[in-house]
């Protein structure tokens, strides 16, 4: 699993690539918590996530809850089919804010 972090107009964009599993999710969790701790809007780009398990999804839940408590936005973006399937199975696809593309593009908030 690889990741990158970019700043876009004060928002943070975390891009995850590859498999987010029990081996790699601790690093994802740490990164996401650090980002939401900065008080910025956080977008997590999942377009290149080939696999995600419950531990990866749990890191999203934790970051989402902290952002909500802090009154900041946390959204998933360009969710790959593999990741979307797991969110659906976990019944979290209606819980997270999911955008089809990054803000500034053709963001439709689907």
């Amino acid at each position, binding site marked *: 699993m690889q990741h990158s972090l970019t700043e876009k107009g004060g928002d943070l964009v975390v891009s995850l690539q590859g498999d987010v*599993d029990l*081996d790699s999710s601790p690093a994802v969790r740490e990164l996401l918590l650090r980002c939401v701790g900065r008080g910025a809007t956080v977008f997590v780009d999942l377009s290149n996530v080939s696999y995600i398990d*419950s*531990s990866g999804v749990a890191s999203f839940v*934790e970051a989402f809850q902290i952002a909500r408590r802090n009154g900041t936005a946390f959204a998933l973006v360009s969710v790959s089919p593999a990741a979307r399937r797991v969110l659906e*199975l976990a*019944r979290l696809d209606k819980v997270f804010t999911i955008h089809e593309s990054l803000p500034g593009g053709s963001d439709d908030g689907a």
Partner: protein
Amino acid sequence: MEGRGASRILSLRVPARADQLRRVREEVRAAVDGCGCSAQAAGDIVLAVDEACQNIIRHAYGDACEGSIAIEIERVGDELVFSLVDSAPPLDPRSVKPRDLDDLRPGGLGTHLIRTVMDETDFARHPSGAGNLLRMVKRIT
């Protein structure tokens, strides 16, 4: 147990460690890909086996991960039968239950995913008396 026209399509033993899960996923994917199930069903099966292995690593063995996980998949007619065996201390099957999904919190999703994907899931002591046996069934037609 290769009765009723059963054919074993995977027999694998791996150390009970997170860094082994990629190999588990690859081997399970390769085994079920030839069974005629849809791409989505194959992906779901890989997820369920991965989650089951995680439960063994995190909850059965706990932090002292010296043990291994034996994974077998048999095809019996239109069913895939999965057996995961560990040598961890006895786990109370009643403690292995999905959480209420309305209770949004990190963790606890794995068992829900397994039960959602698989048609049957049974936790038991291994017949040998040592370790736990998780048996899962997925109907593929």
